[in-house]
Every structure is written in structure tokens, then in C-alpha cells.
């Protein structure tokens, strides 16, 4: 009986056409700049150990396997794209489906469309400029893009929450939340400084974010993910996030290309996974070998297409732009 009621798409035909328009514009943008479209596998024997991401797993059965081989569904195409960079592909982009277990809500669907691109010879400032140009071109005539703001992570926290994220203690973050009538979750560990910063980010900073396009950069070193560190006091991650009308849209890095440092970060992330009770993820030795062989100096960014469509069409939920979200998949 249920199937009779929910076989139809949750997105309108207008939203489906908007998707086609936006994808055509994106491809035109990269074609005009000689950025090569590439295609890398969804399945991978290795995955990301990022403690904040949960990979789907599946098994392959066929010649050469007795009991099947375990594969991860990628959470982003980052690792194989870096192998293409090391192989001399130059600037590249990809539009693909990525998969993140556990993520479902108004702004999350466990399967979503990602645009990811890498620019050789760019640093993250160059790439932020290109993101702005791309958004202007893609959103032309769809939704106005009036203001563009640039913030460092630190200044944004000081401005919107009155907190210096680089010096504040967990106790300080807790009392700032309490002062705003927000009770911190009991499950947040006292030594999880980044978790507490994320609590303030999502409950205080993001709701105060101005409309328009906002770039936030220079994250704490502990939140570098795959970005290189910029020396300083304190050192910061050469990482940026893009917000459009208050919604997180993209994340970019001046990419870490040092194989040894990458190996160390993977090990640390797997340690954190195990501390929080998650399985360790098989390390991507092929990525490390490619970094060893040499990934050119580059900046890369991943942008959520479904959220972009939601903003472009002024919809309230991802269900309005995804034909068949998880509940109807």
C-alpha cells in the first residue's frame, strides 16, 4: 500500500529541470577553463578514516575471491582524484554521487551529488576567488548574489559568539552555551575540544551568519582534515568553507601533498575512530604511494550540488531537489 502513495518523486519537475540547467552550466564553466572532467570509482578497497564520516560498506563476489572482498562506497572522490593529479592530469573536476552513512535530515541525504575540483598551481585564496566566479555564473538569473564576506574562523567566532576559538577552554565553551540558554549535550566528552567548537558553530555562529556568500578560512590545525598547515601563532589549516545564505555549501583545501604527514594524520584519525567506538578504516596505500611519487601543488574544493539547487530554487529542503531521497529510494 505504501508504494502506491510514495512512488512519485519528492522534487517537482521544475526542480529536476533546474538540476539539468545547473549541471550544464557547471560543465560549460570548466570546459571554458580547460579543466578536465574525470570519472573515478565509487567502490574502493580503502576509505577515509575521518572520524566525522561513516562509510557504507559492501562486498564484491567474482573471480579471484572465495568469500568476496569488502569495498567502501566513497564519501568523496578525493583520493583517486589525487592519484590522477600525481599521474599528471593537470586541473580536473568530477560530478558524482557520494555516500555518507548516518546523515539524514533537511540538509542531508546519505547519497548526494558532489562537485569536486582541483586546480594545480592555485592556493586556497585563488580557489576561493574561483568558487565565487563559478557561483556567480551558475546562479545567474536564478538567485541574486549580492554580498560576499570573507572571515577567518577566529574572527567569525569572536564577532558572532564573543569567543576566541584558539584560546577558549571546553569549560569556557560550556559556560558560553549555558549563558545563551543552550544545554550542552551530555554525550560530548570534556576532552573533545573540536566537538565543543562544533556545538558553538552550529548553535551560535551559523545561525548568526549573514545572508549572501560567506567564505570562512584558517581553521584550527586540529580541524585541518586534508589541508596543509600554515605556520604561525597558532598555526592554522589552509582550509575554507563556503556558506551561501547561511547553508554550508563547500569545503576546500590548499591540499596537503606530504606523504609522511598524510600517513600520520590517517593513523591519528583511526586512533580517534577507535576511541569513539568506530572501526578503523583500511588506509589508502595507493593514495600514499601517489603522494610519495608527487602530487603537484594544488588547491581543491568539494561543493554539494543538491544544496546549491536548494538555494538556487529557494526550496526549504533537500527533498525538494532530489527526485527520490532515501525514504523513497
Amino acid at each position, binding site marked *: 500500500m505504501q508504494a502506491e502513495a510514495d512512488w512519485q518523486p519528492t522534487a517537482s519537475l521544475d526542480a529536476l529541470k533546474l538540476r539539468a540547467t545547473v549541471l550544464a552550466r557547471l560543465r560549460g564553466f570548466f570546459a571554458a577553463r580547460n579543466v578536465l572532467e574525470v570519472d573515478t570509482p565509487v567502490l574502493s578497497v580503502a576509505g577515509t578514516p575521518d572520524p566525522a564520516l561513516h562509510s557504507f560498506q559492501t562486498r564484491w563476489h567474482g573471480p579471484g575471491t572465495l568469500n568476496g572482498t569488502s569495498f567502501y562506497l566513497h564519501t568523496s572522490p578525493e583520493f583517486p582524484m589525487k592519484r590522477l593529479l600525481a599521474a599528471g592530469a593537470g586541473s580536473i573536476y568530477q560530478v558524482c554521487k557520494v555516500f555518507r552513512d548516518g546523515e539524514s535530515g*533537511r540538509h542531508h541525504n546519505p547519497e548526494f551529488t558532489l562537485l569536486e575540483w582541483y586546480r594545480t598551481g592555485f592556493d586556497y585564496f585563488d580557489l576561493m576567488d574561483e568558487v565565487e566566479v563559478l557561483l556567480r555564473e551558475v546562479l545567474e538569473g536564478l538567485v541574486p548574489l549580492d554580498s560576499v564576506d570573507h572571515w577567518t574562523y577566529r574572527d567569525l567566532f569572536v564577532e558572532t559568539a564573543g569567543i576566541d576559538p584558539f584560546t577558549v577552554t571546553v569549560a569556557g565553551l560550556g559556560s558560553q552555551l549555558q549563558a545563551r540558554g543552550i544545554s550542552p549535550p551530555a554525550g560530548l566528552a570534556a576532552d573533545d575540544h573540536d566537538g565543543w567548537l562544533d556545538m558553538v558553530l552550529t548553535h551560535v555562529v551559523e545561525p548568526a551568519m549573514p545572508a549572501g556568500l560567506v567564505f570562512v578560512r584558517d581553521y584550527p590545525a586540529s580541524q585541518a582534515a586534508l589541508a596543509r598547515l600554515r605556520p604561525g601563532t597558532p598555526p592554522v589549516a589552509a582550509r575554507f568553507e563556503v556558506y551561501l545564505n547561511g547553508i554550508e555549501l563547500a*569545503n576546500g583545501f590548499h591540499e596537503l601533498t606530504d606523504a609522511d604527514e598524510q600517513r600520520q594524520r590517517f593513523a591519528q584519525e583511526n586512533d580517534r575512530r577507535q576511541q569513539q567506538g568506530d572501526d578503523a578504516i583500511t588506509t589508502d596505500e595507493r593514495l600514499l604511494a601517489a603522494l610519495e611519487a608527487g602530487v603537484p601543488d594544488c588547491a581543491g574544493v568539494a561543493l554539494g550540488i543538491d544544496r546549491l539547487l536548494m538555494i538556487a530554487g529557494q526550496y526549504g529542503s533537500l527533498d525538494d531537489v532530489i527526485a527520490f531521497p532515501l525514504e523513497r529510494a
Partner: protein
Amino acid sequence: MASYSTNEFKGGLKIMIDGDPCSIIENEFVKPGKGQAFNRVKIRNLKTGRVIERTFKSGESVEGADVMDTDMQYLYADGEFWHFMDPNSFEQHAADATAVGDAKKWLKEQDMCEVTLWNGTPLVITPPNFVMLAVTETDPGVRGDTSGGGGKPATLETGAVVRVPLFIDIGEVLKIDTRTGEYVGRARD
């Protein structure tokens, strides 16, 4: 009582917050792309009726609340407690003034209503959306005036006072919407 992971959160789930039974109204998943996931939840405290917001770390577990809604018949009030009976088990439950709250204005003996039990004790009494109650006191009816304009106060058999049209007389049975406390019409019988 079982505990629930944030992955089981949905509207209507009953959980314990700060020692009080609560019902989830709305559950929002919030997560920075590279950061910690949270469930930001709107919850109604079933004892006070107040709506609060709480945030949980995704994956965290919360104690469930043993709360059940049961249709029961209102029997009588003894001055301190209001007594209800489960028509299936014939089990009787006594509710105090806090649990009965505003519902007392609409409770007529023998009428059915919803009793929310927490650990077997009445927590909230919810009257039916519509009740039929007789007028015990009002100014004399003005014959022929069916315009409904103006109106006058009328006291009902339960003690509730509602605004009614001028043509209503003592002894008439009225249909009242308990959610708004407004007169709907005369009972048809």
C-alpha cells in the same frame, strides 16, 4: 525502561529529560561537513506542557519514558482527585489537580477522555475535542434572534463559562470545542 539512540528519534517518542517525561515534537539533524553530528530536538515536557529545545550528540542514548495514552471513562471527583476507569480492564486511576488542569472545565461524568499515564499514574487528562454540555445559567433567551451577533455568557453544567448566542436558554445542550473553549452549536437530538 528501554533507552533510545538518537537514530530512533521521531515525533511522538517519549523520553526522560531532567527527570521529567517528555515527548519529542521535532528532530533536526545538524552536522558541519567536517565535524560532529548533533540532533537538535524540540521537546514538550509532559508534566508542565512547556516546550524546550535540547541538543544531543548523534549516537547518544537517552532513557525512554514509560508513557501511555489510554481512553478512559470519567467517573467522579471527590474534591481532591478525579477518578477515571479503563473500560477494558475496569482498572481505576485517580488524577490530581495538576494532571487534570484546565480539562476539569469540560469533564462530565460518564464521558470518555484521554488519560496519559506515566509509570501507571495519570499525568495529563485530555478532554474530547467536542463535548455536549447543558446550560445551567444564562440571561433569558431572545426569541427570533438567530444572528449570533453580540452574544452573552452562559454557565454550563461543569461550571465552565462560554460565550453563546442571545437565543440560547437554560436547559439547552450545547456543543463546545474544548480546544478553543468556544460554542459550536446546539446539540442535535
